[in-house]
């Protein structure tokens, strides 16, 4: 835990002493990380980073200011705050929702402190095993171990200490068989001690994915476009469900996006404020965003505005249930914040973000989904994906996909792409599997672009288009 919080306390007092300041908060953060990269068998350097800085947010005359500095000198901050320029004319007036005063301290258990680990060991194992396969022609592996210690306090007396160690892995492999190539990105990660990093079993995951790429290339068929277009039943794995949940439901339910604050950056939403409570999916669909899932990559117990986090339903049985909010947009909606305010580090403004977002598992085994589909496609993983800025029209490329024939998974199909409108996709969900997986990602939003750790997933889903 950060011990010397004096500068944050002094900064808060200073901000509140300035004329016309109605609200202030301070966020102090120390970030430490080590990283390693291995490319084509060569150790491409190791890194060590240490950062420490302070962010102050202030509302003065209704205008919202965020100032960050790494100068551990109250005089430098004083000068920043006093120089805080006026932005007038056509300007927004910001107010915040009333929230409970919190006083908390939390940390994550570590059997092996994250600092005692060396990410290079696991990368070397993965590299050796992937290279030994012979057909994985290009290999790039990167891993990072880090710790964020933070201290938050605000004018209302909320005070939160947090100590969160985390670990992540990113790998790119390109397998090549008979003159054909296929690429896979693999992201793994979590929150906790070094033992969590070891448990990722990176080498096993890399070897398994490489084998799957080879299988698709060796045994896969390419179907003609007209046949692909006639496919109506699709079983989506938790990985595919996860990216679809994140892109077309999670982002679309961010209140700042709905209300236009991201319009010039990460875009808009097909939802409007008036769409609250509207049916946006089939009855089989319940979607949850839960930052409190232990050891999940998007874990936190209090958000970056000191609001206590909880699992919230974004969609319940097909109906839009809750927009993701921070205090600013909760106030706009006349509600309490649901603790979705996050920044990627102390230097950037906290904005509305997802955490661990998933489709609530159903009661069917994956085999039952295949049986119900009878004929169609099972899509297990993707490489390329994108969506328009209103979150209405998405594409998930079937990096690993199979035909479903007579209710069973059969041969791989090389060129299947799931491209559908959001409403069409979520209304097509007829069954949700009891299986469950969460997949790691870094979610980008805002300007400056902020990447925050998230997970996305859920149970498998049967999409019966046109039914």
């Amino acid at each position: 835990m950060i011990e010397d919080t004096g500068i944050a306390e002094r900064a808060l007092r200073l901000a509140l002493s300035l004329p016309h300041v109605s609200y202030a908060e301070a966020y102090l953060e120390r970030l430490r990380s080590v990283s390693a990269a291995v490319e084509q068998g060569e150790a491409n350097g190791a890194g060590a980073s240490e950062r420490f800085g302070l962010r102050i947010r202030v509302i003065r005359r209704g205008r919202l200011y965020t100032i960050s500095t790494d100068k551990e000198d109250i005089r430098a901050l004083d000068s920043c705050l006093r120089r805080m320029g006026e932005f007038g004319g056509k300007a927004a007036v910001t107010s915040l929702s009333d929230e409970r005063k919190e006083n908390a301290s939390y940390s994550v258990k570590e059997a092996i402190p994250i600092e005692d680990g060396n990410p290079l060991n696991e990368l070397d194992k993965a590299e050796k095993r992937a290279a030994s396969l012979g057909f994985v022609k290009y290999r790039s592996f990167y891993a990072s171990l880090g710790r964020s210690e933070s201290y938050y306090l605000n004018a209302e007396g909320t005070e939160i200490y947090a100590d969160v160690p985390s670990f992540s892995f990113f790998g790119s492999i390109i397998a090549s068989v008979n003159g054909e190539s296929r690429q896979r990105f693999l992201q793994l990660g979590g929150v906790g001690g070094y033992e969590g990093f070891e448990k990722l079993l990176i080498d096993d995951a890399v070897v398994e994915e490489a084998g799957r790429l080879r299988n698709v290339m060796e045994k896969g068929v390419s179907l003609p476009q007209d046949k692909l277009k006639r496919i109506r039943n699709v079983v989506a794995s938790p990985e595919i469900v996860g990216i679809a949940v994140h892109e077309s439901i999670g982002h679309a339910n961010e209140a700042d996006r709905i209300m236009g604050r991201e319009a010039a950056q990460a875009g808009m939403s097909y939802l409007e404020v008036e769409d609250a409570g509207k049916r946006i999916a089939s009855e089989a669909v319940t979607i949850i965003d839960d930052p409190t899932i232990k050891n999940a990559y998007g874990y936190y117990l209090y958000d970056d505005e000191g609001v206590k986090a909880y699992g919230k339903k974004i969609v319940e049985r097909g109906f839009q249930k809750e927009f993701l909010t921070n205090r600013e947009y909760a106030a706009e909606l006349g509600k309490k914040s649901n603790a979705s305010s996050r920044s990627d580090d102390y230097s950037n403004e906290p904005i509305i973000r997802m955490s661990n977002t998933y489709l609530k598992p159903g009661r069917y085994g994956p085999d039952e989904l295949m049986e119900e589909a009878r004929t169609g496609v099972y899509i297990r993983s993707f490489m390329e994906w994108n969506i328009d800025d209103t979150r209405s029209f998405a594409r998930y490329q079937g990096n690993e996909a199979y035909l479903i024939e007579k209710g069973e998974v059969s041969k791989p199909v090389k060129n299947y792409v799931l491209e559908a409108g959001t409403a069409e996709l979520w209304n097509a969900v007829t069954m949700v599997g009891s299986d469950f997986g969460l997949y790691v990602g870094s979610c980008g939003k805002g300007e400056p672009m902020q990447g925050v750790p998230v997970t996305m997933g859920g149970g498998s889903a049967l999409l019966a288009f046109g039914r």
Partner: protein
Amino acid sequence: MATLVEKAVRIAMKADFDDAVAIVKDEKEDYLKVANSKADSLVEEHDRIITVFLAKDKRLLFVSLENPKESVLEKRIKKAAAEIAAIRPKNDYNGIAQGRKHYSADRSSYKEFSNIDAGFLSDMANGMINGAEDGGAASVAGTLYLNSYATEFCTSGGYSGGSFSAHMRVSIRCFGKISSFQDFAVLKRAGDLDAYEFGKRAAEMSNMVKKKGKTDAGRYDIIYMPSPAGSLLSNINSMACMGNIETGSPLSGKLNKAVGNGGLTILDSGNFAGSVDYRTYDDEGMKTSTTEVIRDGILRNYLHNFSTAKKYRTRSTGNAGLVEPEPGTPIIRHRNSAKNLDALIGEVKKGILITNTWYTRFSNYLTGDFSTVPRDLSVMIRNGEPEFAIRHGGASSMVGIRISENMLRMAKSASLAGGKPVQTTSWDSEGDYCFCPPMLVEGVSVTTL
């Protein structure tokens, strides 16, 4: 008196490292966000980060510290001397550039922006909003971004120096009745932009076409405005960096072969006049230059630092990043050019004008297969005339089409430019800049909602 970076290199060499490079960057960034036709909020960031690259027996370590005291820096470098033994060697590492040169800093653009405050940004935002509203925009969003930084560097190879840089980036997104339109301005001097006119023009563009309609999936000739053309074709320069050539690039093994249209030339420059990213030296102190990546459709050069150049028995192109070669500013040109955008539209029988794209994602970096999503004004063109704005959804920004492409196919099918290259960027390219003209690419695969 020795600077912090000189001291860092001195401490490193005393600690028996073979090579050391220290770079300190003192940066200030201001973002005034515009949303719903109002100035929304202001973010001001200050940081000072020193990064020290250390090499010993081909083992490489990067240490990055935020605003450290000298004693902390010294302690950290000494700790690194113990840590580096645990790192595996990079066997193909060949050291850093050797020479003797001090680069002195040019403060001109830095001074230009030094007195700008929130009041100036606010006035500019209001000018932009007023212009857009007068131009017919129903709603306006955007960002006014001001960046200034000072860097100093020193290498054990004998190079040192510093630089100052400052620029502004203004983005606007106007929402009209039929469509939306996003535009970017990149400024090296604050007075270079008439914010009111910039806003008005963007609003007028969003209302450029009076009709909306749907289109079918199929192949179209696409005219990309400079922002999408540049953000897509700039990938070529990343793909030409030696690190990427070694880990999977469609340009691998294609040196001196045709990879683009015969009229297409793509340069990579560290010191192109007027470029926001102008610098006279790279991260290991080599003088920056302009390198032909593609000349008249032929792949001429990969981009190197000292170490990769030595490995491949060539010369550094002055593209050293601290880890591996990095692209400078892409400059995209075409020998065949229509007079301007209107003339380029006049050349197209059946096609689409794309003014903005985002969410470009590759399915395979080795083959260069990718897809991207047009957002904002996309105009159906028939017989050289704009016909209607493509809209497959309710919102005015909802185009509802997707482009599936291959980077080399795109380069080969880029048949005609529509004027001179302009400096541009996009939200999607995260602050990377390039120079690019409007570009016609033939036979592009388009799918629809």
